[in-house]
């Protein structure tokens, strides 16, 4: 049925959902065209035949044309409309929940850019690389106003709400580069909040992925700990406490008391956490308490991984860690109540807890 519409009137169709939407769109267009042709045809016919002064019969209406007629076309339109509703809804329900094995991608919108992060760790701005044929589940949120994540070629759109999460999913069927647009008005550069979704063959995607900076999930955990255990209270850039910023210090040589220097590596960081008063950087007071016994080895590793990555690189994750109470659009963090599998997005993202 999709072939009935000439190519230049059809947007590129590159996902499983797109084909279904196009089918019902075409069907509905045909039905509508039929109804429009019927109405306009009748109006034109009557207008010509019963124009003032023509010789057509103007007598009483035949007895058939009465309230039976009204009831007839009421029932007919109701039937047609309900049929369309059923058709559209069955497609919608069938496609609502993402497959269980879907690849997970977090999307954070802000004025006026898209930041994406896939479960494999790849982080991008205004771009999203995905393998063809694999279902991809998107978990969206926003850092400021409402945005809407729109990929026309996938017939996919979902608003990104501040402090809430929304979900949707797609499965690309074609490789190539596709528009990513913002469709909820979000301020000055709304129309420049554009991006690309690049669909690749799985092997190309694997190659692309391996070229990305390494991610093992430790750093993400470390970032949470960094906030949860109070490190950020002093070491954040905006903090009132006089403590060194840790952004970008990995591998640097830092000056210590007594004209010594130390290279920031795993051992130094570990010492600084457990015995902070030992090697204090010049210009800072030894005010940091020891975390001896308060952090496990694994947690220290995570913190080190986070600092190694750079504490300024990961605000993406921070923006995703919301209070559950503020989060009613989102699937919960844990202990989700049972849902109807037909209607609701798949199981929620289990975020590792410290």
């Amino acid at each position, binding site marked *: 049925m999709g072939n009935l519409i000439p190519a230049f009137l059809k947007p590129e169709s590159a996902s499983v959902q797109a084909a279904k939407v196009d089918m019902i769109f075409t069907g509905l267009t045909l039905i509508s065209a039929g109804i429009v042709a019927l109405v306009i045809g009748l109006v034109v016919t009557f*207008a010509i035949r019963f*124009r003032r002064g023509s010789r057509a019969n103007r007598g009483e209406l035949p007895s058939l044309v009465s309230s039976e007629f009204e009831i007839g076309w009421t029932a007919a339109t109701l039937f047609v409309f309900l049929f369309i509703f059923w058709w559209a809804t069955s497609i919608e329900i069938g496609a609502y929940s993402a497959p269980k094995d879907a690849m997970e991608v977090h999307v954070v919108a802000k004025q006026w850019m898209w930041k994406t992060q896939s479960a494999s760790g790849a982080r991008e701005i205004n771009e999203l690389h995905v393998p063809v044929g694999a279902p991809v589940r998107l978990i969206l949120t926003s850092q*400021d106003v409402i945005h809407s994540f729109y990929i026309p070629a996938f017939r996919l759109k979902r608003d990104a709400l501040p402090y*809430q999460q929304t979900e949707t999913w797609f499965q690309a069927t074609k490789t190539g580069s596709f528009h990513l647009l913002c469709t909820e008005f979000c301020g000055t550069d709304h129309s420049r909040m554009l991006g690309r979704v690049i669909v690749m063959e799985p092997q190309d995607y694997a190659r692309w992925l391996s070229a990305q900076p390494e991610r093992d999930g430790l750093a993400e955990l470390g970032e949470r700990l960094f906030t949860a255990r109070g490190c950020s209270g002093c070491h954040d850039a905006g903090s009132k406490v006089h403590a060194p910023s840790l952004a970008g210090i990995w591998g640097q040589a830092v000056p210590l008391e007594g004209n010594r220097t130390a290279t920031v590596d795993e051992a130094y960081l570990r010492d600084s956490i457990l015995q902070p008063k030992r090697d204090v950087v010049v210009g800072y007071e030894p005010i940091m308490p020891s975390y001896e016994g308060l952090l496990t080895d694994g947690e220290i590793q995570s913190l080190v991984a986070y600092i190694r990555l750079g504490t300024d690189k990961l605000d993406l994750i921070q923006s995703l860690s919301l209070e559950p109470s503020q989060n009613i659009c989102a699937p919960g963090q844990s202990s989700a109540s049972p849902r109807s599998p037909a209607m609701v997005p798949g199981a929620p993202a289990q975020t590792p807890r410290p």
Partner: protein
Amino acid sequence: MSSGATADATTLANPRELPLELPASYLADGRTLLSWLATTDHKRIAILYAVVITFFFFVGGIAATLVRLELFTPQADLVGSDTYNKLFSLHGIVMVWFFLIPSIPTTMGNFLLPLMIGARDLAFPKLNLVSWYLNLGGGLLTLAAVLAGGIDTGWTFYVPYSTTFSNSFVTLAVLGVLVSGFSTIATGVNFIATVHYLRAPGMTWFRLPLFVWAMYTTSLIFVLATPVLAVTLTLVVAERSFGLPIFDPARGGDPILFQHLFWFYSHPAVYIMVLPAMGVISEVITCYARRRIFGYSFMVYALVAIAMIGFFTWGHHMFTSGMSPYAALVFSFLSFIVAVPSAIKVFNWTATLYRGQIGFESPMLYALGFLGLFTVGGLTGLFLASVPIDVHVQDTYFVVAHFHYIMVGASVSAYFAGLHFWWPKITGRMYPEAWARFAAILMFFGFNLTFFPQFIAGYLGMPRRYHVYPPEFQVWNVLSSAGAAVLAAAYLMPLGYLTWSVFFGSRAPNDPWNASGLEWRTTSPPPRQNFFGNPEVLAQPYNYHPESTPPIKDQPRVPSQGSLT
């Protein structure tokens, strides 16, 4: 008075008898500015409204022209992004609240409702004047916001953009809309009480012209939907100006709640715009087809059903917003249901033409144009009611095209149909028919050229409210902008020839179209008291068939024309 023709009480008096000892027309009833600004005459208030909404129509039109000019090319070349955002916001706010919503009800409704039911005035004439001042005040506040620097939220005022992030004059504009909302509620109360209490003897509910039914159902929406808008806007002001968090997501507020409240008003607001249009079209089509309306009672039920069910469907504006999927399906279902009565109306208008004596005067051309455009607009509504399609085209030019087909294609066409149809009654002058026909035809083609390409651009994925856009959409935008130029010319023409006719048009007889309604049974223009004597209604409306009884027991002798001096 010596003419022999006056023996029959129901015929018109001889034109030469004009200086009868009868009241002057409402236009001649006082000539000072104060006699207009302090009037309680529904007809004069209608004129006051007409002046204000015509002004705002062209304000909104200029904004639209600039928007279309900017979109001629994909790049930004005429205005900056912030200016562009302010232009489309201005266009939306002004056109929705200061043109479309008051358009037919406050002008033709105000003028004709008492005339059509045989009343002397609305039930609360002072309140009617207060409504006009509120409407004007709201308009001036909004205009002040524009002159102060503009507002850039779009007409939807979505939070948290409008409350926290926008740096424009949101509060002022929102207050303007709020004040005009009170005006709308007052008008609604007035119309409802008038229809209930001031119908002439014999004017039963099922003898009311469909225009009156349309005004009545519109008023129901005025009264029951507008307060929710008032709350929504109050909350925006409270949050923006007084820091009272209601929707602030940082403190747990829920922006989707704002959308629920906003659309609880703004979806029925669409029916506020289109129900009066349906009323006008019913009057015009019957008159120029010389035919009783097909299925009168079904037409009434359809109006009531649209007004009722129209309240249940607002959620289809929010399918992609993160609303619960269960609620989305319920709203989708209800949206399909509300399309049924609209379809019935289209079929009934079409069937009214059958076996008629169809003439093609300019009001009828507008009305036939309405039929086509409303059908297209209504059917594309079904696309938007289907969740999967809506997910694709929501907030694209497809939606823009759809609602312009309803609001401009249908409502504005009907506005012009009604304006031309009742122009002789309102002003006592005839307009140049050839010009009027030319404008009607030009408007129809200009409209389709402007908005049909937007359906395609939208389906191809062009989002709305875009200042710059990907170049592959340019061809559709060029077509659309070209159409807008035609449309602008077509809208300017009535301004010209109707103004001309006020001064130079030939004098209008009382019933130039040989129409059947009660409003034609008095002079053109009518006197302050509307009628000569007390009208009494004897039959159904749309009495265009030779075999039926005369509908109205006529009054004493009516002068053949009102006094314009």
